[in-house]
């Protein structure tokens, strides 16, 4: 009878045990990291205390004393710094969320159009993408704001488009009327918000279009031909056959574009839109709490982007190939 299985297990010493050593190394590294961080923090705390700048968030409840041009959250100068920052955050979210929706829409259309049978349309999409993504965003924003939007006529000579009036005092949707030389009523977008949205959407959409183009290109040619042979129209092919398969490739790429858009929204400060970063800049100037304000900013942008990532990962799980 073969007795191989009954061979008594050799007792491996712990330092030869790969699993144990692995764990130990990990634990040692973790401990080292913790100690290093604790040392740095203690050092920072001690130095700041010596400089009379102990880290604190007490200033958040002090009255801010400055006004903000436009807020969704009701805010006045006598409110606290905390509320001012919250108003700024909401302004940022306003840009990010509407920017995401508009940029996705434009990006998908441009990306899909680059497969059009019409050479003119294909050419236009190429020119758009190459032009926009090779020019720095800051430059584009400054261009849109100072060269385009600030060149609009004053309110009493506003440009009238169907359902839309463009003037130096803002972009008015849904029938604003001229009262005493000022446009009133309707839905008003400030020029700053309009310029920021335009710049961000046009810039991000170029990148999204490339992601979409890559996704569509990843769908085998046979799928197009099969759909065509079923007698589907080009739009139907795209909607029913190609896009569902392309999404698997598109969604992970979109994730990083969305995160870029959220981060790029902080360039608002260059064109006078009061986003989180702009409000934080005023706050740190008035309070002198530079380190706290920037830690807070870092944390908020980090959480915002992690949330976007989490949402996109959830979408990714929905669209990926169900393997059985």
């Amino acid at each position, binding site marked *: 009878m073969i007795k191989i299985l009954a061979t008594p297990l050799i007792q491996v010493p712990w330092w030869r045990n790969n699993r144990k050593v692995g764990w130990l190394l990990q634990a040692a590294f973790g401990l080292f990291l913790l100690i290093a961080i604790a040392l*740095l*923090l203690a*050092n*920072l705390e*001690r*130095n*700041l205390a*010596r*400089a*009379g*700048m102990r880290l604190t968030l007490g200033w958040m409840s002090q009255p801010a*004393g*400055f*006004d*903000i*041009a*436009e807020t969704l959250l009701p805010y006045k*100068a*006598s409110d606290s710094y905390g509320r001012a920052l919250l108003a700024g955050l909401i302004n940022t979210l306003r840009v990010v969320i509407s920017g995401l929706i508009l940029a996705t829409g434009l990006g998908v259309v441009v990306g899909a159009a680059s497969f059009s049978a019409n050479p003119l349309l294909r050419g236009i999409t190429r020119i758009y993408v190459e032009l926009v993504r090779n020019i720095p965003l*800051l430059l584009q924003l400054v261009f849109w704001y*100072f060269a385009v939007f*600030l*060149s609009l006529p*004053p309110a009493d000579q506003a440009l009238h488009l169907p359902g839309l009036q463009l003037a*130096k*005092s803002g972009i008015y949707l849904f029938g604003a009327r001229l009262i005493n030389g*000022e446009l009133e009523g309707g839905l008003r977008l400030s*020029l*700053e918000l309009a310029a920021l949205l335009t710049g961000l959407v046009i810039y991000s959409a170029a990148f999204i279009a490339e992601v979409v183009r890559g996704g569509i290109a990843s769908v085998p040619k046979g799928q197009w031909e099969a759909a065509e042979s079923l007698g589907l129209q080009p739009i139907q092919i795209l909607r029913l056959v190609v896009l569902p398969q392309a999404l698997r490739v598109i969604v992970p790429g979109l994730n990083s574009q969305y995160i870029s858009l959220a981060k790029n929204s902080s360039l608002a*400060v*260059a*064109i*006078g839109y*009061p986003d989180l970063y*702009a409000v934080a*800049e*005023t706050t*740190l*100037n*008035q*309070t*002198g709490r*530079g*380190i706290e304000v*920037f830690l807070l*900013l870092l944390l908020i942008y980090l959480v915002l982007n992690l949330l976007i990532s989490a949402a996109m990962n959830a979408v990714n799980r929905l669209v990926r190939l169900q393997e059985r």
Partner: protein
Amino acid sequence: MDYKRGVDYKRSLDCENPISNSHKTPVAFLLAGLILAITGCGGAETSGNGRLDVIKARGSLTCGVDGKLPGFSYQDNAGKYAGIDVDICRALAAALFNNPNKVEYRDLTPSERFAALASGEVDVLSRNTTRTLSRDAKGGNGLEFAPTIFFDGQGVMVPIASGITNLKGLAGKTICVENGTTTELNLADRFRELGVAYTPLKYQSGDQTFGAYLQGRCAAVTSDRSRLAAVKTSFPNPANHIILGDVLSKEPLGPVTVNNDSGISDALRWVIFATMQAEESGINSKNLKEKLAFAKANPNQADLRRFLGVEGDLGSQLGLAVDFVPRVIASVGNYGEIYDRNVGQGSRLKLERGLNRSYKDGGLIYSPPFR
């Protein structure tokens, strides 16, 4: 680690990272935080002659200025910096190195300026900065203010064609203002008092602020009155704009150094007082040589001899040369000359002396005794 090494380390960090202008603030703050955390030698908590020694060892002074404000600090047609703020830097360089040109200038926005000073990127901030309690206090920005070199007040400029004549006329209008300035707060305070609604549009730099105003995005622009007058001269049609009579605030402008480094702040303070004392004593860049010869020849002129460093050791008590006063006057002149050349009758701005006259003429410019 000793303090000097710490500062040199910071400098090398800053020099090796050419950080883009618009996003210098966060980087400077993070650097400041990192350096405080790692090195254990915060720039703000040193005492003695720390920064002054660093400047002397380096052989040049780094000065943070606005860089785009005629009369205060701007580059003239030849690309050379000029203005009241610049002359203060030149005076300090003259006192330190006997050469007013040993200054490196950094253009800073209002929001960048304090971070640049705190992180050690600039030695002295000479950027029309308003002195306030919270900027001075340890619990606030923790700065050290040198004597006020220009007493100003906040004003509002509007196009004449708008027909606006006072603050109430701005009800419901949009007002352009620079981000991170006391101006922004004064504006909010005054309109709160008046109970008048308005919209503040904030930009990061003066160029953007005045650019947006000129393009008609806002009905008015607000800043220090001297600054409005200065910028107005560079408008395409200066005569189309008017500065309203309302004065919104007191704006005492002066240079700044970091807290708790008395070496540099004392030197800067007395270099400024030297220009003021020179005007009080009737010494200027033209008669300096005669006055020096006169002081040397007349042992009974005690005040003059001490002031010009002919006798005593006032200069070396500050860590400067004994004859720092003649050096300063020879290179930039006395306060009156500095004023006239940059913002007064000898300049395009043609501002009245007003509060900035010597106390002898009923103004606020006054030097403590050199003794």
